[in-house]
Every structure is written in structure tokens, then in C-alpha cells.
């Protein structure tokens, strides 16, 4: 999807659908299969499988306790696939552009800037995790439960410090509130079709299946 406005709209609508019901999640998965580059937008297998394993473990616990484990697994997997697709397709400055387009140069710019900094932070975290992996390999530390806590603490402290540095940098550069940009967007006809089709899972999730299909028996 070229147009970030339509991409974010589709992602929001599909996420709500996937979160609301299993039927919505299945429909969102079908949409993902039709309208995204699928496997090309996925993260490295190791990252993807560990995320799915965490979801599966929670789903298993839920099912074991009598909860809707399978539904949770389907809904969370759909959300994960949608999130990885949006993250892979979003380019620098697009979220800021959409926020300014939607909410103007004051509130929109603020929200867009925060979102952009958050996205940049994700890329930085990925780099830092990679650096820590190398550091652990050099020290001869095997990744495990014992190494997770100090690593997580170091990562969080580094992120807080980085946020503080960015805030100071914005002050030094004279930033107070808002800004002025003129975003331009290009939309492919297929983008519009995909966005319209994204509404179907949302409708499915808000309606009872019996209202949509004539079920046998």
C-alpha cells in the first residue's frame, strides 16, 4: 500500500475486527493474505517464532484454565501479522504526515512527532538487542532466563536516557509546540479497494455470524 493514510486506516479497522471476535480475526487474516506482500513483510523467523510461541503459551494456559485459548491464539496472531506488515511498510516521516493531515500542524504535529520517535525507538531497540547479542557472545554468556533480567534493565535504562537526550536536543533547537509540514500522498487504485475490503472484517466482527450466514443445523 503506497498511501500511508489508507494503510493506517486499514490497519486500525482490521485490528479492531481481529481483537473483537474470532470471525473478525479470520476475516482479517484472509485480508492479510490477499492485500499484503505476506512473507516479505515478516520479521526474521527467529523473532516471529518467538513472538508466536509467547502467544501460543498464553493461549495454552488460557485453554487449560477453561478460557477461549484457540480464539486468543487466532486473534493475537492476526494482530501480530497486521502489526508486522504495517511496521515493515511504514517509511520515515509517513506517520507524521498522516497525523498532520488529520489533525493539523499543532496537535497533529505533536502526535505525529511522538509516533515517529516511538517508531525510531523500535529500530534502535532492535539494533541494541543485536549489539547485546554480540556482547554476550564475546563474553561467552549463553542467552537464558538468568541473562534476560539484566539485559531488559539495561535496555530500558538506555531507552529512558535516549528519550531524555532527544527531549533536551529538541529544547536546544528551540522546539516548543507544533510545526509546519505539507505532506503529499500518492494512492494506488488497489489501495482504495484494499481499504474498502478492510471494512468487511470489521462488519463481520460486529455482527453475529447467524445474521450473516444461514447456518445448517
Amino acid at each position, binding site marked *: 500500500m503506497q498511501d500511508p493514510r489508507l494503510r493506517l486506516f486499514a490497519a486500525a479497522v482490521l485490528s479492531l475486527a481481529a481483537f473483537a471476535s474470532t470471525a473478525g480475526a479470520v476475516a482479517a487474516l484472509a485480508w492479510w493474505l490477499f492485500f499484503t506482500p505476506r512473507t516479505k513483510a515478516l520479521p526474521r523467523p527467529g523473532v516471529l517464532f518467538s513472538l508466536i510461541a509467547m502467544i501460543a503459551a498464553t493461549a495454552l494456559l488460557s485453554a487449560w484454565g477453561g478460557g477461549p485459548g484457540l480464539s486468543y491464539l487466532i486473534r493475537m496472531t492476526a494482530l501480530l501479522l497486521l502489526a508486522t506488515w504495517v511496521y515493515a511498510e511504514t517509511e520515515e516521516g509517513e506517520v507524521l504526515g498522516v497525523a498532520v493531515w488529520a489533525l493539523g500542524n499543532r496537535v497533529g504535529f505533536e502526535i505525529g512527532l511522538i509516533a515517529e520517535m516511538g517508531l525510531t525507538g523500535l529500530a534502535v531497540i532492535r539494533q541494541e538487542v543485536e549489539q547485546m547479542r554480540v556482547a554476550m557472545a*564475546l563474553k*561467552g554468556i549463553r542467552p537464558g532466563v538468568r*541473562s534476560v533480567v539484566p539485559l531488559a534493565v*539495561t535496555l530500558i*535504562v538506555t531507552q529512558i536516557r535516549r528519550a531524555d537526550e532527544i527531549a533536551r536536543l529538541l529544547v536546544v533547537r528551540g522546539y516548543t509546540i507544533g510545526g509546519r509540514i505539507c505532506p503529499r500522498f500518492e494512492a494506488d487504485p488497489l489501495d482504495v479497494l484494499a481499504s474498502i475490503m478492510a471494512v468487511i472484517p470489521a462488519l463481520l466482527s460486529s455482527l453475529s455470524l447467524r445474521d450473516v450466514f444461514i447456518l445448517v443445523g
Partner: protein
Amino acid sequence: MRIDLEDLLFSRDSFTLRGSGTFGAGVHLVSGPVGSGKSTLALLLAELLQPGSGAVRRHGVSSALLLLQFPEHHVTCPTVAEEVRSWGLAPEDVLLRADLVGRGDDDPFHLSRGELRRLTLACAVTRNPDLLLLDEPFSSLDCVAKREACRTIEERGAGITIIFSHERAVLPRVDAVWEIEDGALTPRGSVPDAIPLWRHAPPYLAYALREGARPENIRLSDAREALCRIRG
């Protein structure tokens, strides 16, 4: 104990690095300007990067350690003492060696880069691996700390030590000099024969050579001694 580079070739985008040669026991200096590929070669020798073709072969090397260019990239723990323990070492000895006694409870990121450099160097040297790769070990250090780092490297009696550095003022006594130029690693040979062949030698060595002196090694003191010998 030795490391053989066999027609090593590494490429990424427009950058290419190639080289062949053998790193034997002793201290080696790999010099070259910023961006010439020193860090890439260090990662290749540490087997953290794989070459496109050719090979890095280790003979008789049972342990290896790379000190990264940016010391903060080594940090994996929230306090200095825990950081030292994460290297499998006792904090007391290392903090004494790094001149950081009493800083064990500090956040490693509250140390200056120079202090962090001293800490990681002390950890690496105390671990005493067969192969020690030091990527820019003198950056962020003042002259006193650079001399201390040189002394620490010189005191390492055994094994292979390879220093990757563009430092041109304070250098340790070394056994061999290598240069990276235009994407190629070139062995200049053993010191002192390598000194006249070293194209980007520090200014004090170049001056000594111009004056007809023959320094025995690459330190400033070696150039001074050589000049004193010819001038009486």
C-alpha cells in the same frame, strides 16, 4: 599459534576488503584511515562476520576476544561490578586495574567513554585469551590513559594481540605492522624492517627516517632514541 587469512574477500554495497597473510604470536598493529575497513577486518577475524570468499583459519587458538570500537556496546549489566562479573571476572582486581576503585555500584553508562574503555580493556586483558582483537583501543583516552593502555598491551606476554587503530601519536611496542589501503590489507612485515615501508607512519617516525635514523620500534621514545644515536 597463528591466524591465516586465505584470499579473504568481504563486500558490502560499494565497500570491498581483501587480504591474505599470517598473524603469528605477538603484537600486530593494523593501521589505516577512518572508514578503511579496520573494524570490518576485526569482526571477520573474530568470526562475527563471514567473508564472501576465502577463509580465516585459526591454528592453536583456543580462545578469542574482540574489544569493540564503542565500549558501550559491551555493556549488558546495570552496574559496573555486575558488568565485570558478566565477563566472568572478580570486580576487585579489574576495578583496580582500570583505576575505577569505588565505582562498582555506578551505572556503566554514567562512566565517561574513556573510563568505560579502561574498564573493557582491563576485562579483556584480565581474561587473557589466546587471540585478543582490539578495535581502536586508544580512542576516547587522554595521553596518560593511552600510555597506560600501551603498557597493559605490552605486558601481555603470550598469545596474538591485534590492534586496529588510526592512532598516530601514542602507540605501544609492536612486532609487526599491517596497513589497510584502498580496500586491501597489506603486510608491511616485522618491526623494525617494516617501519620504512609503513606508508602512513606517524609524523615522528617519518621525521626520524628523513633524518637518517632507524628506530627499533614504533613508539615516540624509539624515534627519540634513534635520533639521539645518530646525533650523538
